[in-house]
């Protein structure tokens, strides 16, 4: 079953220079799939994510998420849709500094006005799963990057969204923390069958996924599926990247786990 469907989606930025960020992109994500989107700088990854996030709208084409088309919704409906159906993980965590870890986790639920009991129950579950028990009372500036990103993932998970959108979730983390976060995402994906769409630069991060979609200049370029061994999948990702022909700079230096 397809949870996300993009049909001939085009996004044009009007301005002094008209810029076609996404060009007739077709793209599908199945339920329970863990998909990475890769591409060189300026290939339209962030635009793609913004379109799916419903904070930007496509110039033409159709986007459907879980059978719902965001285009037909009002601003308020969209906000409620994001709040209930989408989970976000950002490169720089974007935790609210004035809230504790626990409060950051519970934020999407309080916005929706869930009963306190239910909120506490979900926090208990999640904190355990994400290993956040010890730091629930801490502030975001008192915890490490890895812990912060785990908190952010918790925040994205707590309302059990249809799909999690992750924008370079390992971009600000060291290799150890990156690995932790990625393994966590894999675990979440496998155990809870949560659909995850991750935009990344990092071939290592991409190698944890079920499928990697490559885009270039806003157009579909290639896609590859994982195999049994992550090492070989990683190698195949590198091969496609070199085919992509982006500047060498676009590829981060290889860090083996």
């Amino acid at each position: 079953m397809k949870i996300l469907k993009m049909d001939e989606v085009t996004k044009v930025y009007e301005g002094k220079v008209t810029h076609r960020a996404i060009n007739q992109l077709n793209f599908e994500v199945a339920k329970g799939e863990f998909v990475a989107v890769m591409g060189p700088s300026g290939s339209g990854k962030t635009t793609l994510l913004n379109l799916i996030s419903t904070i930007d709208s496509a110039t033409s084409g159709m986007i459907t998420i879980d059978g719902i088309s965001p285009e037909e919704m009002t601003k308020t409906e969209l906000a409620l849709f994001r709040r209930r159906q989408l989970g976000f993980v950002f490169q720089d965590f974007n935790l609210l500094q004035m809230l504790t870890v626990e409060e950051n986790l519970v934020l999407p639920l309080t916005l929706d006005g869930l009963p306190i009991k239910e909120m506490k129950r979900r926090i208990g579950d999640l904190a355990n799963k994400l290993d956040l028990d010890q730091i629930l009372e801490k502030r975001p500036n008192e915890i490490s990057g890895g812990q912060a990103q785990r908190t952010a993932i918790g925040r994205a998970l707590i309302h059990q969204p249809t799909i999690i959108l992750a924008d370079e979730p390992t971009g600000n983390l060291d290799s150890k923390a990156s690995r932790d976060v990625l393994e966590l995402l894999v675990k979440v994906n496998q155990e809870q069958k949560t659909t995850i769409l991750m935009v990344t630069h990092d071939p290592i991060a991409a190698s944890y996924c079920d499928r990697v979609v490559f885009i270039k200049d806003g157009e579909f370029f290639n896609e590859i599926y994982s195999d049994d061994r992550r090492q070989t999948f990683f190698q195949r990702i590198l091969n496609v990247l070199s085919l992509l022909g982006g500047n060498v700079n676009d590829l981060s230096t290889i860090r083996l786990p």
Partner: protein
Amino acid sequence: MTFRQFAYRNVVRNRRIYAAFFMASMFSVMVFFMYSMLMFHPKIEDEFLREFAVSGMIVAEIILYIFTLFFLFYSMSAFLQARSKEFGLLLQLGMEKKQLNKLIFLETMLIGAVSIATGILFGYAFSKFFFMIIRELLQLESLPLYIYWKPFALTMGAFISLFVIIAMTSVVFIRDQKIIELIRGNWQTDEWQSFSTVKAVLGIIMLLFAYTAAALTSTNVVKALSIILPPIAALGTYFFFTHSVMFILQRLRKRKSLYWHRYRLIAVSEVSVKLRENARMYFIVTIVSTVAFLSVGTLTSLSSYTGQFRELNPLSLIYSSELTNPYESEHISLIRNELEEQGISYSLVPFVIKQQTSSYSNFKVNILRESDINSLAIALGLPLISLESGDGMFIPYSEESIKTLANREIQTVLEESNVPVQIKGIYPQMLFPSMIIGSNLIVVSDADYELISEPLVGRTEMTSSFNFFAFHVAAWERTKSIGLTIDTQVTNAIYNQSYSDLPFYFENPGLNYSIIRATFSLLLFTGLMVAAVLLLAAGSFVYFKLYTGLERDKRQFDVLKRMGLTDRELIKIVNRQLFPQFFLPWGIAMLHSAFSFLSLQVIWSNLAEVSILGDMILVLIGFTLIQVVYYFLIRWRYIAHVRA
């Protein structure tokens, strides 16, 4: 591009960022200049209360200067904080610390110079308008615009020195920062929950104590309290903002059912951050607003006193004299001569007041004759009375007594002469100030008056009654130079506490009025000056803090919007976030002033029979309206910014 050009372009091309700082500085200059214009005004110097005025204005200008210094210093630090990223970048690109200091100095001086120039320009443009208001307030005949170098020199000198001080010192703020910290913009060290419960409770207790003491104050202790309470209240306020607020919010945050409720989670936590970060600023704003409220409130109450002065003192000149007084005829002819010399028309009503003991209360009563009251009433244009034999009437000793005694009926006998009197009702207008004759004053019919022949118990005939000379002058405000020599004698006697030995008493309400009005106008004048600046500064502090935090708030709302915050929720959060920032300092200041006014009322009712409540409420409502308008204005701008 030279270094100076760089500084210049920095300012000119960043004018949007600089606008807020520039506006605030310019406004300060403008106000200061208008005040200096008034201070050096030749009309004021020549005519109006020279000695008072000059010293009063100097005090006001000094307060203004210190306050502006403080205000600009604060604004500058907030402003540099907002630009820390830029400075970090410059340092990273290889700029020396010395050069950075020079850059900031040049920029500050540039803004300073421009704001001084435009401030003076606008100040001069608005001076005429300002003078018109002041002219109305002080009831001067004219207050023309003038050109004279002194106000210009004073303003320029004051503000150039001020900007130099600021430009030199504000650099301190970035001196010890590491480049990386500047670039990240991490200025404050985060000191979460750094409140002490003891101080939090102490703050609340101190405030409650101050309020209770102020509310329950009485004549005996009011002086002592007026010295003790302000420091207690100030310290209490400080603890309240730095500790108690945190304490209360912490309590609230523990109550999850209240706290984890929709957008309240964000609003409350955001408010607690803002209140904690700016606790000291809110303390200053509160104190400043309180001072401003109080000074304007007090002054309004003073002017309400001058408004009621004429009603309380319907007679223009009063001379009362014991029968043994040897100076009587000399004084009366002196007063008459002086009145005639100045060409003031008057009517003189002399009468004799007799004293008897009332069988009803066993107290001494002062007795007037019906026909005397009627001739006085004719002179003053007040209603006449007619009394049957055996009837009497109270003469009011205060505004209040007119109401309380209106329906009293007393059957009494004037004991010494054995004259029965039925006292019914009260004369409907004030005739004499209570100081003059005392509170136990009645009027009886002419026939009964004649029957009173026996002297008061223990007194001779010569000392149990006294002569009273009431002068009515239509142009009562012109009598201020009449009978100065007699007035001096009375004043000296009161001063030497030998007042009871004096065989006569003289009162000149016209003179009193001119002194009171002059003093009050001056107080009003300086008070309004300072209050205006303080209120302006209080508002600007809040504005500046919001402005410098705008980037961070905007980022935060972007994240929240992405996570699914609706527009309505955003506005609700903004409301709940801005409201305490505007109205908490204001509310505390209101409370402070309200309770201070309670004490003030006690002091006031000792001086004169005037209620200041009405005026106070009016003043407080006025300030509230200004604050509400200010709130909506800022809220509108803020929402526009964070939504953009």
